[in-house]
């Protein structure tokens, strides 16, 4: 009950005119970011983060999270109209969304995409409202060993559940941790891994890494593919919207299933992209129109969009309640909290009630505002996409450079950003995952600190991670996640052994 009161208090904070204005600006910027190739949720938020340094944390998070919602909505526009996914999580939306646009049903496809996004996000926000305070209350009792076990679980899920080869994930992730370790050691106050370079004293800032890896890297990939935009016209009017809305309730079961898949994948740090593919795949198998998927089925738009948005939103749950972000964009928001002087994690719910509930309330309102804004302004954003890449690309490069500079007012960071950009291009081409690397840079210091504190308490014995039921369970879950592919393999073999007649 207390949480409901807090939530309404949050609504009161959000409804101030200044915050509403920031919300609208955030969504508009977010849609632009989502529409443009090379600018995604994570690096878009990272570039704009310095602009919020002078705002109050609540206003800042409202604007930044709305940029995130906008980016999630924006990805669908390019998928449907141009067959170019603006974001990785909208790849699955192109399968049925673009054929619909080719048949002249672009308005219908877009309305279905936006509405499903909204439903997915709303579901995830309700989950956050109900679950996050409980998780946070529970996590308040965590000591260093439990904290480390949560990080362990998060990173193991990346290795076991990711679609990239596990050893590539391990290599990328550990490089992230090593980059985080450079500079001042927060426990002993000693300098390490700087090899006498004064530029490295403060270590590697993950914001620079995000802007480089995702922003510059993406531009290089786009240049290589030599994109040319050939878009379909976006005819969207109130009549189409109402017609589509009347049709959508028919797919309630697909929608509900996609919401659940999305929330699950978002909370465990698998992320929005696998969620959208999985949801599309399952919908194709379960639906009675499954054989028509890929030719312009509206259900094929509903499934991935709902899941992607639910995953993208629920990725904020572990960030708020545990301090462990579920996606790179959530990691950037977490970095923002640190810069504004807030300590992410369970204490937020005790010490920064206004902030947390303001954020949660803004998720409800931001998504409603987002739905209205995207439905009414699609032609405008489609026009942005028609600006040729030879104009857009240098402008994005300039924005990335400015974003990198403003993090610490350092021109060295701008050079570093380019290095990360080239690295991002190479890693992406060689199928290394970037998200665990970024998350490792963000969480490296905290994970190391809790690891060393636990060892200190136990005089160096690793047994501390099995010393009580709670920490043992989380560690065991982590190990299961880590070895998931092997377990799955063994399980299916066992089943084949038990039922040999089925394979005949």
């Amino acid at each position: 009950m207390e949480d409901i009161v807090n939530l309404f208090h949050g609504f009161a904070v959000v409804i101030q005119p200044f915050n509403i204005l920031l919300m609208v600006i955030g969504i508009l910027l977010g849609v632009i970011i989502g529409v443009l190739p090379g600018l995604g949720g994570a690096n878009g938020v990272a570039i704009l983060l310095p602009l919020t340094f002078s705002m109050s944390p609540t206003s800042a998070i409202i604007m930044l999270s709305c940029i995130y919602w906008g980016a999630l909505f924006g990805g669908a526009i390019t998928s449907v109209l141009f067959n170019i996914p603006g974001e990785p999580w909208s790849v699955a939306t192109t399968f049925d969304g673009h054929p619909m646009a080719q048949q002249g049903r672009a308005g219908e496809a877009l309305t279905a995409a936006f509405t499903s996004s909204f439903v997915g996000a709303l579901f995830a926000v309700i989950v956050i409202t109900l679950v996050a305070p409980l998780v946070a209350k529970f996590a308040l009792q965590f000591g260093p060993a439990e904290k480390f076990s949560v990080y362990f679980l998060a990173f193991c899920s990346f290795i076991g559940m990711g679609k990239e080869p596990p050893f590539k994930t391990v290599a990328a992730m550990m490089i992230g941790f090593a980059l985080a370790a450079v500079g001042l050691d927060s426990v002993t106050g000693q300098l390490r891994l700087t090899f006498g370079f004064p530029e490295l004293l403060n270590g590697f800032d993950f914001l620079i890494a995000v802007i480089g890896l995702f922003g510059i890297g993406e531009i290089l990939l786009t240049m290589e593919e030599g994109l040319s935009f050939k878009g379909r016209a976006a005819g969207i009017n109130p009549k189409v919207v109402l017609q589509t809305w009347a049709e959508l309730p028919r797919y309630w079961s697909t929608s509900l299933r996609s919401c659940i898949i999305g929330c699950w994948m978002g909370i465990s740090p698998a992320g929005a992209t696998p969620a959208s593919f999985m949801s599309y795949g399952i919908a194709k198998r379960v639906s009675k129109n499954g054989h028509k998927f890929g030719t312009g089925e509206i259900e094929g738009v509903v499934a991935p969009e709902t899941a992607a948005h639910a995953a993208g939103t629920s990725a904020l749950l572990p960030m708020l309640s545990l301090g462990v972000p579920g996606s790179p964009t959530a990691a950037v928001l977490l970095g923002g909290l640190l810069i504004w002087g807030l300590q992410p994690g369970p204490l937020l719910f005790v010490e920064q009630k206004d902030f947390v509930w303001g954020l949660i309330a803004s998720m409800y309102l931001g998504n409603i505002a987002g739905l209205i804004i995207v439905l009414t302004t699609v032609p405008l954003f489609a026009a942005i996409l028609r600006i040729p890449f030879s104009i857009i690309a240098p402008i994005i490069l300039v924005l990335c450079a400015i974003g990198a500079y403003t993090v610490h007012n350092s021109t060295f960071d701008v050079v570093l950003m380019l290095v990360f950009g080239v690295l991002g291009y190479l890693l992406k081409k060689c199928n290394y995952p970037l998200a665990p690397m970024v998350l490792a840079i963000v969480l490296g210091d905290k994970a190391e600190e809790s690891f060393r504190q636990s060892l200190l308490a136990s005089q160096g014995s690793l047994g501390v991670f099995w010393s009580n039921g709670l920490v043992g369970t989380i560690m065991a879950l982590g190990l299961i996640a880590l070895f998931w592919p092997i377990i799955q393999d063994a399980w299916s073999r066992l089943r084949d052994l038990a039922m040999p007649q089925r394979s005949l």
Partner: protein
Amino acid sequence: MTDATSPGGGSGPSHRWVEAGVAVLMALFGFIVIAGSLQVGIGWGPEGPKSGFFPFYLGIVIVGASAVNLMRAVVEIDRDRLFADWDQLAQVISVVIPTTIYVLAVPWIGIYVASALLIALFMKWFGRYGWGLTLGIAVAIPAITYLLFEKWFLIPLPKGPIEDLLGL
């Protein structure tokens, strides 16, 4: 798409060796981390594990995982698969080189002038736009940035001699 082979059957560096090279570079990075950790001590000190304790093991895992990746790259990747064909790489490099000059020039001539030059270069070189449009956008974007950052948000960006001359 990472697995795209060249559509025109053009030539280019083999994917296998690029991937092997990336794995070797990562292993090298792992060795640097190990060396750096040894410098500050990897054992136990008065405050518990020393500064190099955690990174030392990270370094070992990086080297180990890179060794596996290197082996798999050499053994498993089809030798005919291209990383990208030379035309595509030329496109990528034609972005990397001006951007490198750009980031190195920022401390000397300031971000505004450098940005204007970068935008103008791209529009003239890749887009082949007329001088009017090129100059218009090349000047407008830095000008908007100036107003937004320096005037509205009061965040100073790096400036060079030209801004000094104009007294900005």
